């Protein structure tokens, strides 16, 4: 994963730089300039399962809102290398789901374009780049609650029982039917969500 990181040395700086580049890739991979923190984190988690190279610089742990990465939170809030590339805004008081929003800046778009040009020249990085686009296309259209439902159901090993969890479980039927109605899942997935053991 050269360039994304030069991770051969595994220094703290290089890991941080790689992670910030990865965040920039996720932010730049859609025309939608804003993404919720929840979406960003879960989409990186899916990428983490897909691309072994990412495991060198991000970890995920079990959390009440599904797979959680302290490194991503810190890098978004206080980037060390990529200053002015994105802006984080806190969630509204009545929003307990999104975790806030991250918006790519014009400076970030420029850096993303430069980085993606370089990534296209490397086989492994290309896989990462186009997968990031695929993830944004697939999951951005889900609401934070819908996304969390799918995540809780698919990765129970990363999900802690909590107030948030119980609330999603309580709304499971409504959320699942909504996903079907919006044509985002099929009948089979609806059935598996409804009979799943996300209940306590």
């Amino acid at each position, binding site marked *: 994963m050269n360039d994304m990181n030069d991770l051969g040395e595994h220094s703290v700086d290089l890991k941080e730089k790689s992670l910030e580049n990865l965040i920039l890739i996720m932010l730049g991979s859609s025309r939608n300039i804003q993404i919720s923190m929840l979406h960003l984190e879960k989409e990186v988690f*899916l*990428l983490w*399962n*897909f*691309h072994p190279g990412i495991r060198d610089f991000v970890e995920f742990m079990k959390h009440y809102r599904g797979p959680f990465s302290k490194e991503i939170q810190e890098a978004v809030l206080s980037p060390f290398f990529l200053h002015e590339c994105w802006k984080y805004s806190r969630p509204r008081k009545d929003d307990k789901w999104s975790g806030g929003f991250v918006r790519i800046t014009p400076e970030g778009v420029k850096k993303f374009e430069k980085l993606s040009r370089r990534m*296209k020249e490397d086989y492994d990085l*290309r*896989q990462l*780049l*186009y*997968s990031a*686009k*695929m*993830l944004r*296309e*697939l*999951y951005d259209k889900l609401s934070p609650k819908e*996304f969390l439902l*799918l*995540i809780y*159901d*698919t*990765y*129970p090993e990363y999900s802690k029982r909590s107030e948030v969890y119980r609330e999603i479980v309580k709304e499971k039927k409504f959320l699942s039917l909504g996903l079907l109605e919006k*044509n*985002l*899942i*099929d009948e*089979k*997935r609806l059935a*598996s*969500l409804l009979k*799943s053991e996300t209940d306590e």
Partner: protein
Amino acid sequence: MNKKSVSSDSTFYICFSSDIKKNDCLIKYVNAYSFCIGDRILSEISEILKKSNGLINRLSVIHYDYFELVKPFFGRSDEHKTDGEYEAIGIGNYLEGMGDLAYLILDDGKARKFVKRHFPKLDRKMVGTIGFIRDSCCRDQSINPNDALAILDAIKTRIENENGARPCGMDSAKYKEILMPIQDEIKRWVDLQFGEN
């Protein structure tokens, strides 16, 4: 000239190797197009076929598990562990990103619906095995019409002669609806191209 890139589910390969036993035609396809394939789909193809005429060396193998990207839409159930369709979609998406994708071959109805639901760009490149045989002949002129017609004929014969056979997801009802019109289309195209005055 660069070959056109194709991502396909295993049904395409299996159709040639097991259903109609025309490995020679499959080799013509992998010579005419650049086929990208993932580990899941590769595991569904028989070892004999992989070794046949060096097929494996003519395929571009991608060792990333694309199913991981779509997994939340299917859940953690083991029944999807070997699904190659979603790997083909992921690879199709990768090739589309590179601007290289010419065809995404999917015969499975659920996988086709998944593409229609989530990836309108890929939908435009999506064909079934039968549609691909037509396009490779009439649109790209990469496959000889005699070969294309022979393949379709073999599929038809297999369905007619063997109860329950479903080469490339085709059954006796579907073949009348899909395969036969395409056979006629190719014949008409041949007449137009080569004349039958």
